[in-house]
């Protein structure tokens, strides 16, 4: 059964940017699920360690940009013993097609998972057309 398989550890995907970052620190690509229904496209992204204030969703010229700074969790006087995952920033961009209704985009952040709902514009939702016999 696929549901009960054992989870494998995954190193955070470090982003290889064509342009150099202007800020120091590591940049990661979050894992996302994207699925579509007739009415909307939903995007789920795993961004553990990002608070609401540090998450930035920007839509400009059909490009949706997610940026999230991971809040440093350590107190100043803590010493590392074992470091298996690193912190930095999440960054990912998606290009949206014309069919997205940009005014009704909705975002929710729960337990480190971002849920972004991108509704399609009314005219793009398919309607079945009844054919009359004549």
């Amino acid at each position, binding site marked *: 059964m*696929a*549901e*009960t*398989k*054992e*989870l*494998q*550890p*995954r*190193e955070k995907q470090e982003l290889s940017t064509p342009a150099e970052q202007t800020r120091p620190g590591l940049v990661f690509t979050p*894992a*996302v*699920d*994207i*699925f*579509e*229904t*007739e009415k909307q496209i*939903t995007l*789920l992204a*795993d*961004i*553990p*360690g*990002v*608070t609401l204030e540090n998450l930035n969703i920007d839509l400009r010229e059909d490009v949706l940009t997610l940026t999230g700074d991971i*809040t440093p*969790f*350590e*107190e100043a*006087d*803590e*010493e*590392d*013993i*074992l*470091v*298996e*995952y*690193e912190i930095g920033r999440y960054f990912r961009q998606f290009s949206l097609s014309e069919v997205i209704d940009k005014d009704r985009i909705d975002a929710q952040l*729960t*337990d*480190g*998972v971002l849920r972004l709902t991108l509704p399609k514009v009314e005219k793009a939702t398919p309607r079945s057309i009844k054919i009359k016999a004549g």
Partner: protein
Amino acid sequence: MIFRRPFYNPTWDFRSAFEELERMRRQMDEVFGELERRPQRLLGAGVFPLINLTEDNNNYYVRAELPGMKPEDINISATGNSLSISGQRNIPSEGEDVRYHRRERSAGTFSRVLALPGEVDVDKAEASQMNGILTVVIPKAEAAKPKQITIR
């Protein structure tokens, strides 16, 4: 005009060749020594979840990234000086009529046991979860805490 002969060195004989090897070996030792001195990096145990372990004078802090997991999905138990974290990550179904474009997030079970480097007081351990990060704070046993010794 000066002829450069890059691979010819008049002082190159057997002795200096061995010296050269010796010098290279020392440099290699320095490089590897440097690597060993750093904290153990990335995928140390190769078991999910990845854990960061830190300490201060009073506590050990175990942190793991578990996004989208509810506290009731995670089991934490401690015995002696080992800490066990297990659970199951579910990704709820989004209905029948959805078409997936990307599926990068994974679901499944996990179990990890971590040996803490010193004596701990497991009765006072506390766990919390925030923004998808699990934090377990385990106080060190009184005997293991560093004692300030004053000079008289």
